[in-house]
């Protein structure tokens, strides 16, 4: 069950707020301090990606983050940009394809390039699940034995 939910308008500034909440929830859930840094970066990447997607598509609705602690932490980041429905590796492929026509890393962006972002999510979270669909994309990140 979601314990803390954070909705932020799509603006780069609020990615920092999301990172802080993630760190706070990780600490409350007793996540090791070394792993807390992974949580900080991974949730920031997922949130930045979602915010960038909203900005790119001119969506003014908020991006949503849900946190569930316990023994470990689960963080879920949701955007509302419609994409073909897919799960797992297929969903990652959908995200990569969707970002291919994005302006390059040199212009002002809210997230790094999609391959780097997805590599960081895979590399930093103990478990990652990506789901795309007409309603948007959900990125589920897990550490420890939460949920």
């Amino acid at each position, binding site marked *: 069950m979601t314990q803390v939910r954070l909705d932020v308008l799509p603006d*780069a*500034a609020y*990615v*920092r707020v999301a990172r802080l909440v993630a760190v706070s929830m990780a600490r409350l859930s007793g996540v090791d301090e070394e792993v807390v*840094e992974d949580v*900080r*970066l991974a949730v*920031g*990447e997922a949130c*930045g990606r979602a915010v960038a997607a909203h900005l790119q598509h001119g969506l003014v609705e908020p991006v949503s983050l849900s946190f569930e602690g316990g023994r470990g932490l689960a963080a879920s980041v949701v955007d509302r940009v419609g994409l073909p429905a897919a799960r797992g590796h297929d969903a990652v492929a959908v995200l990569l394809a969707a970002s291919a026509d994005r302006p*390059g*890393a*040199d212009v*002002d*962006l*809210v*997230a*790094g*390039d999609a*391959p*780097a*972002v997805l*590599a*960081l999510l*895979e*590399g*930093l979270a103990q478990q990652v699940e990506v789901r795309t669909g007409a309603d948007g994309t959900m990125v589920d990140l897990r550490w420890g034995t939460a949920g």
Partner: protein
Amino acid sequence: MDLSLLTYEEGDWTVIAVGGEIDVYTAPKLRDALVDLVNKGRYHLVVDVEQVDFLDSTGLGVLVGGLKRVRANDGGLRIVCTQERLLKIFRITGLTKVFAIHDTVAAATET
């Protein structure tokens, strides 16, 4: 919360010592500094991230962008980093194969 930049010359190299957080908020400042140096004809750059507390994919993007710019002028961009946390980020994103990463500014500016 903020980014600090200190630029100095070391032989043929220009060293940019970065401190603080390189994220979506501060990365533009670093990018502007790199673009500025390239515009001034400095194509041999060392970015020292030893004092960086946080680095995300937008920061990596700025470093990759800097590398492209100096390479377009037959230059190079080297990184100074011994922090395990940051090395992990370079490794995860495959950038340890893209950047020459050194332990010290002295080693980075040797040749």
